[in-house]
Structures are given as structure tokens and as C-alpha cells.
């Protein structure tokens, strides 16, 4: 029993640290990608290739003066970024970071907890994240912040529905909400039978999901809650020092988590092609699988940035139009088509 707790504790700490590190280096990567896309070199002063830049940024954030506006609601002002950070990190609990690692005959699963409603849990936690933004925006007692917060909540609500609907078709196929089983469903090359990643069966669902995840993470082209050009900084206009840092961090952690979810749901998670045909040992497959998983996550994090530095921002009415009148009908159509195909091919 104690060994179980120690193993879980190590895993929790590792995942926690990993997500913080990922968020830190996402900021670095974001700046580098932005620079490279704009034919610049980006941060290159702190350490070789600017590798220590996130550290310098972190120190700067901690050292800055903390300002709480006179008219702000002080309690909520402090709670806001905490909620944003907390909910962002909580989502990492159910993500299957890897398969089983057998050490001394005891199998250790590289997943903190395998909930049989894991996907619902992620949805719940991620949608709680909007409270951080709303509370922060409202507590600032600033019109720009409030506008940003209102936009954030409206956007979240409208895209959550399309996101959920796009997932339903996938759940119909896999018949489970557990992320581990969804990954197992996509395991490739078992006994000569071909199993493709879900993106092959659900291209429309994937497209809808990734568009909605852009909106959920408040990333360009759907970064209306922040929209520096119109709302100063949106919901974090009044924030300074590490509270601001928490909001930015939460955004990057959300990005990391949603990249992980996309990889898990549609791109086979820890599976890689021919994983069972190469004659590797269980542990080797697990380690390689975790590596491929991180490569996939890295690609999607890069994809977020890539799109950010390419596309301009949607107008607010375009955003709402897209959410309610395009994505939701498409998602429902996707569910219907998937159901029809499943009935016709006797896969139920």
C-alpha cells in the first residue's frame, strides 16, 4: 500500500513539474516561433539560444511590484488567477502519459488515475477554467477587464457545446469515456489487424475539436478575451507581477493539456506505428510510447503557435456565428453520419 502511495506521489509530482516546465518552455517556444515566422531570431541572450529566458522571465515576474487596484474586490482579485492555474493543472490528472512500466515484476501505469469518465472530467475541469477569467475580470472593476471576461464566458459556453458534440461521435465509436481505453482502441498493428488512429475515422470531428480547442484556450484566432489591440489586455488588464504570470501560465498549461487531449483522442496517444511488430520489450514500448506522445503534444503546441502567428483575430459576431451556426450543426451532422455508418457496417 505504501509503495502504491509513493508511486502515485512521484507520478503526481512528476506530472505537476512537467506541466509547469512545459508551460515555461512554451513561452520560450512561442517567442521563438513568433520570431522565426517573422524572420527574426527571438530571445538568444540568456544562455545558449536563450534557453534560460523562461527562468529570467519567471524571476522578473516574481520581482515585479504587485498592484491591487483600490476599487478592486481584493479577495476575488486574488482568487481569480489561482482558479485559472488550479483548473489548468487539474486536467493533467487523467491523461495517460504512458503505458505500463514493469519494474521488479510490478506494473506501474504512467497515469495518475484512470477514471472511467475521464473525458467528462477533463471537460468539467477545463470549463471551470473560465471562472478564473470571469472572476479576475469582474474583480478588477475595470471596463476592459469586464468586457474581456464577458467575452471569455460567452465564447467558452458557445464553443463548449460544439466541442462536446464533436466528441460524441468519437465516444460512439470507442464506446468508452476512459482515456486509457480510447488509447487502447487505437493501438496499432496487433496480430496483423490494422487499427488506425481515430483521426482517420473522424476527420470532421477532429477538425471541429481542434477549432473548439483554439477557442477554449483563448488562442488566436479566437483570443477575444485578451485581444490586446481592443481591450488592452482583456481580463488581465489590471493584473501585474506573478498574478499576471499565473494567467499567462494557465493559458500555456491549457494549451499543453488540450494538445495532450487531442493527441490522445485523435492521434493514438502513446501508440506509434508498428509498435507491436518490432519485437520490443514491454518497457521499451512504454518509454518509446511516452516519447511519441510528447512529440505529438509538442507538434500540437507548435501548431497552436503556428496558427497564432498566421491568422488575424475573428470579429466577435463572426466568432458567435461560427460557434452557433456552423460548428454545432456540423457536429450534430457528424454524430448522425457516424451513427449511420456504424449501423450500416454493423459496428455497434
Amino acid at each position: 500500500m505504501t509503495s502504491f502511495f509513493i508511486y502515485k506521489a512521484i507520478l503526481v509530482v512528476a506530472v505537476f513539474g512537467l506541466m509547469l516546465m512545459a508551460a515555461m518552455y512554451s513561452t520560450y517556444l512561442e517567442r521563438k516561433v513568433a520570431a522565426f515566422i517573422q524572420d527574426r531570431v527571438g530571445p538568444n541572450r540568456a544562455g545558449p539560444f536563450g534557453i534560460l529566458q523562461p527562468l529570467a522571465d519567471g524571476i522578473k515576474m516574481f520581482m515585479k511590484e504587485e498592484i491591487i487596484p483600490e476599487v478592486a474586490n481584493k479577495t476575488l482579485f486574488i482568487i481569480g488567477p489561482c482558479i485559472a492555474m488550479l483548473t489548468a493543472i487539474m486536467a493533467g490528472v487523467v491523461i495517460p502519459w504512458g503505458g505500463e512500466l514493469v519494474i521488479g515484476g510490478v506494473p506501474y501505469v504512467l497515469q495518475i488515475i484512470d477514471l472511467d469518465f475521464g473525458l467528462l472530467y477533463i471537460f468539467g475541469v477545463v470549463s471551470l477554467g473560465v471562472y478564473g477569467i470571469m472572476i479576475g475580470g469582474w474583480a478588477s472593476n475595470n471596463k476592459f477587464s469586464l468586457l474581456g471576461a464577458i467575452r471569455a464566458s460567452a465564447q467558452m459556453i458557445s464553443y463548449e457545446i460544439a466541442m462536446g458534440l464533436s466528441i460524441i461521435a468519437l465516444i460512439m465509436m470507442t464506446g468508452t469515456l476512459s482515456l486509457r481505453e480510447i488509447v487502447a482502441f487505437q493501438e496499432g498493428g496487433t496480430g496483423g489487424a490494422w487499427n488506425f488512429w481515430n483521426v482517420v475515422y473522424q476527420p470532421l470531428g477532429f477538425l471541429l475539436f481542434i477549432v473548439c480547442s483554439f477557442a477554449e484556450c483563448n488562442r488566436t484566432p479566437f483570443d477575444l478575451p485578451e485581444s490586446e489591440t481592443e481591450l488592452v489586455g482583456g481580463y488581465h488588464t489590471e493584473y501585474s507581477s506573478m498574478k499576471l504570470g499565473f494567467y499567462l501560465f494557465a493559458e500555456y498549461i491549457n494549451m499543453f493539456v488540450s494538445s495532450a487531449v487531442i493527441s490522445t483522442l485523435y492521434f493514438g496517444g502513446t501508440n506509434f506505428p508498428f509498435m507491436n511488430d518490432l519485437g520490443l520489450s514491454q518497457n521499451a514500448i512504454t518509454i518509446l510510447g511516452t516519447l511519441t506522445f510528447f512529440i505529438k503534444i509538442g507538434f500540437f503546441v507548435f501548431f497552436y503557435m503556428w496558427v497564432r502567428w498566421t491568422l488575424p483575430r475573428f470579429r466577435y459576431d463572426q466568432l458567435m456565428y461560427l460557434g452557433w451556426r456552423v460548428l454545432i450543426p456540423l457536429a450534430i451532422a457528424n454524430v448522425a453520419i457516424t451513427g449511420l455508418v456504424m449501423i450500416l457496417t454493423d459496428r455497434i
Partner: protein
Amino acid sequence: MKSLTGRAKVLDNPKMSFLERIYLPAIIGGITITLRHLFRRKATIRYPEQKRTFSPVWRGMHVLKRDDNGAERCTACGLCAVACPAEAITMTAAERKPGEEKLYREEKYAATYEINMLRCIFCGLCEEACPKEAIFLTDRLVSTDYARDGFIYGKDKLVEPVDKRVDVSKRQTPNVLEFKKVKHYRHNR
């Protein structure tokens, strides 16, 4: 209706086609462009390590030249100050005393000579106006300062040291060299 100026343009605002309305082809086009830029050569010059090479006729900080014997060439004629469009140059003239022939080339010299580097636009007209080939713009940069006073350069900064001559040969364009060969111009005598 015809507009008053006749310059009005009828705007053509057609309905977007289906492909345009789903955005995706345009988005894919956009991200391929940014992807190409990702691997392109960067325009940045990493400044302290790398320095941009100056043009051979770069117009930077001025120098007041000495002649071959080390005497100041400037005679405080004031032509540079007159030519200066930014009115950056001021000077006071003084008469050479006996025994100062080593210091000043001609009987009159500039007792003070000041260029306000904040006013200067580095056009090079002073250099063009100078009949004595005393003032030149060089490829040195005017360094920064916190106070405006620091930008008024006097003779201490402008006159070239005897032991550390400033090379201005790069500023002598072929036209100038050609001009110098013609001996019947007073300038070249």
C-alpha cells in the same frame, strides 16, 4: 449618380464563395506561407558580436583634419557653418601668434569649433563646403549620452590626434580625386 469629383469608385463586394466561407483553404495557404518563413534566413544582425559593415562613403562623426606636419587645417572661414542646413556648427576665429606655426597651418585658426550632434543631420554639406579639406565625416559613430550638453562636440573631440590620424581616404570619391588633379583651381594650389 455621377459624383462631384468624378473620382468615386464603385466597390465590388461580391458574396464569398463556399470555399472562401469555410476559411480552410485560406488558412492552409496562410500557414504554408508562415512555414516557409520559419526556415528562411533571418534578417537580424546580432549586434554586439556582429556589426553591420558601413558603406565606404558612410557619413558619421566629423573629424577636423591636420595636415602632414600636424598643423590644424581649419582656418575658421565659417563656410561650413553657412552651408550647414541644420545650423549645427559654431566657431570663433583667432589670429595665429608667432611660434604657433607648428599648430595651425594658416594665419587664422578656429579658437573654438563646436558641432551640436543633436542638430546635425549628417548631410555632409560642411565637408563639401570646406575649401581647406579640414572637415570630413568619418565612419565613426556618435556615442550616446544622458544629457544634451554631452552632444556638443568641441575641438577636443573633433580634431584628430597627431599620433592617431583618422583615415578619410574612403570619403574621397573618384570625382573628388579627379577634381584635385586640376591644378588651376585655387583649392588645389
